[in-house]
């Protein structure tokens, strides 16, 4: 055979070697972007094996500090370039989001470069899905909000005007400097927090975008104990995302495995899983989740990640039947295709058949329902924490913030419940929008189809 065909079989590395320019250009950009944040990665990795190594990174609070004090003359000391605390903070936040969006855009460009220069096939069925998603505004809206939420969780330590350690977990070991009566004073953060409480009284309230008496900027105001709420929310996003992703990951895996097994083998296996799944689904979920979190609250699992891991397990254990139900149909449908028989006829292993010939067809549906139920789980975790059953204090969690602000809703400290509430609504809506987008991309015929299933998936938590 001719040389052309040998080229067609070349591996990705060989193909890049042949025409290196586009790949090299992309790689250089990726490397440059990575170097900016390499310190954070090194820090996180070394942190797993003992004391983390600190390397300065561009987007850290060390490089762009916002903790400083204002002299009576109105000049800011110790902040970035002498900007005010609020401006320094805003500058850092904008930079972080800019960086995150550039990274996302660069990854997307990388895909396009691969598609244009290095892929064998000039067209794949996935291209159509991607193109459909490119024109789906509602799905893109969801994707952007979800992305911002994820960035908030990922960059939580750098985004907050202060850190969890400084203001929430260990406030009496850190100090703030401020000018009072023309003199530079020094006090502990804990002491300062007592002076910046938001408790409904106009005299005792630090609302959104306000400075407190100690020159600290609070973008979302403070919570009743005087701690910065934006820091609280950013850290809470991490907890919510962790619980959501872990529980959806586990239940998605169980759902997919059961759907494939039951669709492939049918018969008794199917019956057993149907009975198990239906039994779990017939339990009143919220009550059952509450029961489990109380019963298991004392066990060793509940100490992992402040009870977050236990919650993730509980949601996975009670949530998989819903996901499984939604992919069971597609799995049975694909199991009827003749290519499954063809695979059987030349002796393909059942495991490989399920992986190669069935799983790709249910993955899209799984993604749709997973992103829709993720919103439900976030609501449910917030709900449980609101009831005092979820994440143990003082770990930040959005539901706890709503709980704390409950008494002040009608007062000047309305922001304590209102902001987390709005953010939960926004994030849950975004996950549903993203799910809609994926669904329309995967299965264009279903467009505008039955909305009742979405509604059920979205309120999966019931809280």
């Amino acid at each position: 055979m001719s040389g052309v065909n040998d080229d067609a079989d070349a591996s990705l590395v060989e193909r890049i070697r042949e025409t290196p320019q586009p790949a090299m250009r992309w790689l250089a950009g990726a490397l440059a972007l990575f170097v900016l944040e390499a310190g954070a990665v090194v820090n996180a990795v070394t942190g797993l094996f003992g004391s983390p190594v600190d390397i300065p990174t561009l987007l850290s609070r060390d490089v762009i500090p916002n903790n400083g004090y204002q002299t009576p003359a109105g000049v800011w000391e110790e902040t970035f370039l002498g900007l005010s605390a609020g401006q320094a903070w805003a500058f850092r936040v904008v930079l972080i989001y800019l960086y995150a969006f550039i990274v996302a855009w660069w990854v997307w460009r990388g895909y396009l470069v691969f598609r244009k220069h290095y892929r064998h096939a000039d067209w794949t069925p996935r291209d159509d899905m991607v193109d459909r998603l490119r024109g789906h505004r509602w799905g893109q809206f969801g994707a952007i909000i979800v992305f911002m939420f994820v960035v908030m969780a990922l960059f939580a330590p750098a985004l907050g005007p202060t850190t969890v350690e400084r203001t929430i977990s260990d406030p009496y070991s850190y100090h703030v400097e401020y000018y009072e009566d023309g003199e530079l004073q020094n006090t502990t953060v804990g002491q300062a927090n007592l002076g910046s409480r938001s408790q409904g009284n106009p005299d005792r309230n630090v609302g959104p975008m306000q400075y407190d008496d100690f020159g600290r900027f609070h973008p979302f105001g403070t919570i009743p104990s005087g701690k910065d709420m934006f820091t609280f929310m950013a850290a809470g996003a991490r907890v919510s995302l962790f619980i959501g992703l872990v529980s959806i990951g586990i239940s998605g895996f169980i759902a997919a495995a059961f759907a494939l097994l039951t669709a492939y083998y049918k018969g008794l296996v199917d019956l057993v899983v149907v009975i198990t799944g239906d039994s779990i689904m017939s339990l009143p979920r919220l009550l059952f989740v509450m029961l489990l979190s109380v019963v298991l609250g004392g066990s060793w699992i509940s100490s992992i990640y402040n009870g977050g891991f236990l919650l993730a397990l509980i949601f996975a254990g009670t949530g998989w039947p819903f996901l499984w139900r939604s992919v069971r149909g597609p799995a049975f449908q694909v199991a009827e295709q003749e290519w499954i028989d063809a695979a059987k006829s030349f002796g393909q292993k059942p495991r490989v058949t399920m992986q190669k010939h069935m799983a790709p067809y249910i993955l899209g549906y799984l993604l749709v329902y997973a992103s829709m139920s993720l919103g439900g789980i976030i609501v449910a975790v917030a709900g449980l924490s609101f009831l005092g059953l979820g994440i143990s204090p003082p770990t930040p969690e959005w539901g706890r913030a709503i709980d704390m602000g409950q008494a002040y809703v009608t007062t000047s400290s309305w922001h304590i419940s209102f902001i987390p509430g709005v953010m939960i609504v926004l994030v849950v809506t975004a996950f549903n929008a993203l799910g809609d987008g994926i669904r329309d991309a995967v299965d264009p015929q279903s467009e505008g189809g039955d909305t009742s299933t979405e509604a059920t998936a979205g309120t999966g938590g019931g809280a």
Partner: protein
Amino acid sequence: MSEQIQESVSVATGETLVEINDLKTYYDDGAILDSNPVKAVDGVNFDIKRGETLGLVGESGCGKTTLGRTLIQLEDATDGEVLFDGTDVTELSGTELKNWRRNSQMVFQDPESSLNDRMTVGEIIREPLDVHAWNTPQERRERVRELLDVVGLRPEHYYRYPHQFSGGQRQRIGIARALALEPEFVVLDEPVSALDVSVQAQILNLLEDLQDEFGLTYLFIAHDLSVVRHICDRVAVMYLGHVMELGDSEELFDNPKNPYTHSLLSAIPEPDPTANKERITLRGTPPSPRDPPKGCPFTTRCPMKIRPEKYQNMDADLWVAIEVFREVLRERARAEKTLTEIAKEKLGMDTRFSSIGEIRTELFAELDVPSEVREHIDTAATYVANNEEAKAREYLGEEFGSICDSETPAHHVVSDTGRASTCHRHLAEYDEPDEFTPYTER
């Protein structure tokens, strides 16, 4: 490259490759009590010779696809054996089964459904080679390109997706996949029925060329009789899980022996509008394969069914009415009654089963019924009215029934070429089916 392959295949035409002995495939729907399986294939015997194309025809639902799937072990046989080169493949399992699978492959009916859309054409054709760890990956890729060439596609189609091909091209891909492991035996399950007529001929020619080139043995399942006549050396005609007639293709089409083959062939449209062709229209639908008739499977619809001596000259319409009457009783016995219906029946209330009087009126009112026959029908109707349906059926069976209702016909050799037909009319004491004018034609 293809020459090499050709050399490795030695074809001794005429020698038996597949021997099917009393094969039964039942679908059990898993009822715990009172299991009544679908008897899709119900005792089939025949041989497939090396290098031949054996056609398998019949109405939809007659079990021909199930038979094909059982032969390549996609379904488990309930009973009987399939000897492939002397090995009973229904007994194989594990590695032995996997190794045997290289020898027999299948081309599926629907080219839309038989190819995984998320894989490239190359991956699809390569998969059997990967499963059996055929040579090195590099050689596998070359082999795939070779196969693409063999089935009339281009090697650069390797990285295309099935979506980018037409139905005929997709069927070529399916054929390439079936040939990847160099099988001896290929089951073609209606390979052209989903294609345009113009494309059908191309695929059929391709299949014939491939057979010559690689010495393949085909089982060609189809319901299009003209296609079968064109491509097959021998033909087996199936009805309700049984092979009714099997023989040389030309001979069978020119001179069908079995009453069912007769009726089936009379359904082929005649291209010449002036030709005066007698057409046998079969009454009703085939019986349920869960509950096939006793005796000959075709007995409920046969236009040449043997009658008792004294009713030889009965009016055709009256005979049909009697047959329908018996069938209705048979169906009623089979119909599932709910508890309420049983209770209503016991209380003498009306059920959804219309009363026997109505049925009788509907069937016989407009006919001239001789008194003797009327008497028998009245007796049977009385039994039914008294809820003794079994007795009524037995009574009618004794009066109007024949050997067709009670005994399973044997295979009779009906020609010098060894053609076999399953019909009681081949017994010495009855008229041969092809010498007998159907009652409805008189």
